């Protein structure tokens, strides 16, 4: 490539550079002392891509709280590790697969699920549960049904075949994802504390072994593709998407765990983004070593493949590992048993460089440090202009609706509120005989089958609210963490640790960067207060698409979408509380305080067509007290149900509590004194993400027990207010709402 021409810089040139900027290209030339050839350029473009290098986010990610008494391994390895007691550890991470899923939704989502599971069993942990957080375009967009059905099929195809239950997640529809859907996949695995495997343990003289599927031409430049916005030619990027084979991955899982159990592996890393390139360079780097890689030995699906394509292929179901020379035969026997490749492709060397051999001759040598230490940017940041028009809401400027039944029905049947049952029943959520609370409720609750008969369990939840993050990035970030914690606490669990999946538009846009920095601050504040360190995560930038709108090209950006996956613990899974009401006559209370702030709510959007208001800010100190109070009430066995107040507000919490009860259709009669509280009835019904829970208590609770409940609330300084009773078949709130539960139920379960 002609350096002079490149330096002259025009935007067309960047395409030829596989996503590298001209400055980056020049830096590489300087580091190498010559113009990079195709092989070197391929390797640098992958390793210096945003996707692999985190060059725009690294400087901020470093500020996240990553330590805690239970954290054994934080960010940096394939996944984070948390101590689960009794010699057990839990390993988890969430990762995005947005760009491939938009290009080819079935394979994109399938390989997203496959990739994250590989990250988990690379660490020595058997995957025990999956979650996924999905964002699609507007529900009425003509392409949305296609994306929804293909993505869900892809996730099921991979997860079901692997035998790992998919126990929860989110499905959200919004116009801002019309041209960039999001697929964030989460996996958690369980391992013994002394059975964790890392990529950083290579020793000089170890042999480097390639296991799993052969290398083909799929997914080449996948990492680079995921580090660019889409343009009008996205279909041309189809070859950058990988093709998944969950059957092979299941074999790979069993073979890897068997080899690990037999202590045949020294160090291991999966071939994910940038395949053989990232696995070899990162393993060498984290071990402080180098490698010889013999490209002739790489198992191939086609002889047409060039060395650089071998290095960049993102063919799935492959691993690179280091093992002692004396263990290789035994290792090979394990992989033979499972019918998988197990080939020696190189050796670990002392010098921190990778020496490639091709056609039996030395081919290239690259310094590990040079390739791995990519650029790190502190990109320009600017507060977005639109935020100046986001003001606190004064609801008294808006006329009250005449008919609350209509708006209530509209809200409960809104695609973002309505049941996602038709989605999660396409996932096997019962395999593993560990799912105690299935998807569709607050948080998934799982037991541990090998805990020696113990009753301990763990809880999982994933959450993000992009609309709120758009309106107030700090609050949106904090809310994602808080909301996960609320769901876990509402089941009686203790929030323990989080993984973050940060989905944003281009970091080269200072306004996007401002959203990113502030959302991260929000995550940080909430994670610190709630004592949930960030143990792993992933950043996905460039979720934007250039589109022709009536002649001129405009860039459609997604709302900033930080998604949090949270792990919680519970001592006794039998004591887990579900969010739905249990029996007629039980008393309904609000635990916590109501702001009545309708800013940013679905109600404002649907009723007045305007949600550009400041959402409720979270008082994190109060939040901690509130959640501790709720957990204490649950642990003492006083509550029959507990539900947080999320999108759609109190009406949705009450209605869901009534209609999601299995085997019966319940309702409620609620009376709320709006005069005394000074909160307008619509604010009461529909204000969202209040710092409060809806709880129900047995009507037969004795006097002393009721006193004990009050005492606990007093102790934490949390208000408890009775608002009504559980009834059968009807939903009544003041004189405003009078609905048949059956009708609501039918609507709620039939939208999606």
């Amino acid at each position, binding site marked *: 490539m002609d350096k002079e021409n490149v330096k002259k810089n025009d935007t067309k040139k960047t395409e030829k550079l596989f996503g590298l900027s001209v400055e980056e290209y020049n830096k590489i030339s300087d580091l190498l002392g010559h113009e990079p050839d195709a092989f070197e350029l391929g390797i640098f473009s992958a390793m210096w891509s945003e996707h692999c290098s985190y060059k725009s986010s690294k400087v901020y990610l470093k500020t996240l709280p990553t330590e805690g008494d239970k954290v054994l391994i934080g960010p940096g390895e394939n996944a984070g590790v948390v101590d689960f007691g009794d010699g057990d550890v839990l390993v988890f991470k969430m990762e995005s697969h947005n760009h491939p899923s938009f290009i080819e939704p079935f394979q994109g989502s399938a390989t997203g699920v496959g990739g994250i599971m590989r990250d988990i069993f690379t660490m020595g942990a058997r995957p025990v549960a999956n979650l996924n957080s999905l964002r699609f375009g507007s529900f009425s967009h003509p392409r949305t049904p296609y994306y929804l059905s293909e993505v869900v099929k892809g996730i099921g195809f991979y997860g079901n075949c692997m035998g790992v239950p998919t126990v929860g997640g989110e499905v959200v529809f919004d116009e801002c994802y019309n041209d960039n859907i999001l697929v964030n996949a989460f996996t958690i695995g369980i391992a013994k504390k002394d059975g964790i495997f890392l990529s950083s343990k290579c020793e000089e003289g170890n042999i480097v072994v390639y296991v799993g599927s052969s290398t083909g031409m799929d997914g080449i430049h996948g990492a680079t593709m995921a580090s660019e916005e889409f343009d009008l030619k996205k279909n041309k990027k189809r070859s950058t998407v990988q093709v998944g084979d969950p059957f092979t991955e299941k074999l790979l899982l069993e073979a890897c765990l068997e080899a690990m159990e037999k202590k045949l592996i020294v160090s291991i890393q999966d071939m994910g983004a940038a395949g053989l390139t990232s696995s070899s360079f990162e393993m060498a780097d984290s071990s402080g070593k180098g490698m010889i890689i013999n490209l002739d030995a790489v198992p191939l699906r086609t002889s047409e493949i060039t060395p650089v394509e071998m290095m960049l292929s993102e063919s799935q179901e492959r691993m690179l590992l280091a093992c002692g020379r004396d263990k290789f035969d035994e290792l090979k026997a394990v992989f033979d048993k499972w019918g998988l490749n197990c080939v020696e492709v190189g050796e670990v060397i002392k010098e921190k460089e990778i020496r490639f051999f091709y056609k039996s001759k030395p081919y290239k040598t690259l310094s590990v440090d040079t390739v791995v230490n990519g650029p790190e940017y502190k990109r320009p940041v600017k507060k977005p202009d639109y935020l100046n028009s986001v003001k606190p809401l004064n609801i008294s400027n808006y006329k009250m609706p005449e008919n609350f039944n209509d708006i209530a029905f509209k809200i409960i049947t809104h695609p973002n509120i309505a049941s996602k049952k038709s989605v999660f029943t396409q996932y096997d959520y019962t395999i593993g005989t560990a799912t105690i609370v299935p998807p569709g409720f607050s948080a998934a609750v799982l037991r541990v089958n090998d805990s020696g008969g113990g009753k301990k369990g763990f809880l999982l939840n994933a959450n993000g609210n992009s609309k709120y993050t758009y309106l107030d990035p700090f609050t949106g970030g904090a809310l994602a963490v808080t909301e996960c914690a609320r769901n876990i606490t509402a089941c009686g669990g203790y929030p323990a640790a989080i993984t973050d999946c940060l989905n944003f538009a281009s970091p080269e846009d200072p306004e996007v960067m401002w959203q990113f920095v502030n959302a991260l601050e929000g995550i940080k504040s909430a994670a610190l207060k709630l004592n949930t360190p960030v143990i792993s995560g992933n950043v996905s930038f460039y979720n934007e698409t250039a589109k022709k709108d009536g002649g001129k090209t405009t860039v459609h950006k997604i709302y900033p979408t930080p998604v949090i996956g949270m792990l919680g613990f519970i001592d006794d899974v*039998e004591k887990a509380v579900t969010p739905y009401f249990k029996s007629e006559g039980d008393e309904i209370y609000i635990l916590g305080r109501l702001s009545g702030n309708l800013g940013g709510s679905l109600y404002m959007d649907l009723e007045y067509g305007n949600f550009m208001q400041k959402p409720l800010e979270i008082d994190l100190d109060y939040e901690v007290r509130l959640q501790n109070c709720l957990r204490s009430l649950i642990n003492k066995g006083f509550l029959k149900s507990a539900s947080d107040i999320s999108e759609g507000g109190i009406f949705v919490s009450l209605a869901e509590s009534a209609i999601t009860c299995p085997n019966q259709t319940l309702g409620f009669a609620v009376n709320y004194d709006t005069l005394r509280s000074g909160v307008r009835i619509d604010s009461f019904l529909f204000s969202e993400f209040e710092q409060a829970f809806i709880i129900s208590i047995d009507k037969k609770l004795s006097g002393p027990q009721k006193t004990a409940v009050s005492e606990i609330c007093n102790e934490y300084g949390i208000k408890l207010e009775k608002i009504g009773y559980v009834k059968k078949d009807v939903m009544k709130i003041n004189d405003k709402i009078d609905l048949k539960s059956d009708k609501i139920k039918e609507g709620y379960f039939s939208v999606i």
Partner: protein
Amino acid sequence: MNNKKIKAGITVFPGSNCDADVYRVLNDVFDLSASFIWHKDKIKDLNGYDFIVIPGGFSYGDYLRSGALAARSPVMEYIKDYAYKGGIVLGICNGFQILLEAGLLRGVMLANDSLKFECKDVYLKTLNAETPFTCALKKDSLLKMPIAHHDGNYFAEKKTIEGLNDKNAVIFKYCDENGDITDISNPNGSMHNIAGISNENANIMGLMPHPERSSEKILGSEDGGYIFKSIIKYIRER
């Protein structure tokens, strides 16, 4: 039989994924002595086992057709011998599909009529309580169990169905919570709501729902446990 622990063999094909669940439930919940049979194991004689379970999963990735490749695996020859001699064989989900493909049971499995994977609780009505798999139940007993499959839409030609009916070989049908066998309670389009069938001698049964996932109260249902309790009862009393 005396108090010796009942021995169960659980086949493991590449891609089996309910093997560990069946293993755990048989050993830990029912206190049996269950062990795995690897598909390449050359156990010529399975007579040491009191019964065999072919568990669910995606054997060989379900490539070609669900269960088709596993049905031609070497271990199936031994299982056929075992079954022809009257040995008790239970195929669950993919195991049912394998039994059909191996010709040990009659009929085929089509894709669910929704063309989707379906994971949910269903109710089953017991049509024949006089088999090794149902002898701890009563006729018409209702069982709640989860299904989790893509290809559970049982189909057979009229003659086969008549044969099944004549021999009382339709063991379980999908029904609603009141025991009524209705279209709406049929989760996959299965002919006549068929959920489980046996061979003529009733020593081989295929069942789409998962009894191993519904053998403990904490999981929402213990009803699946009756299948295993029946097998245990039958073996102890024979």
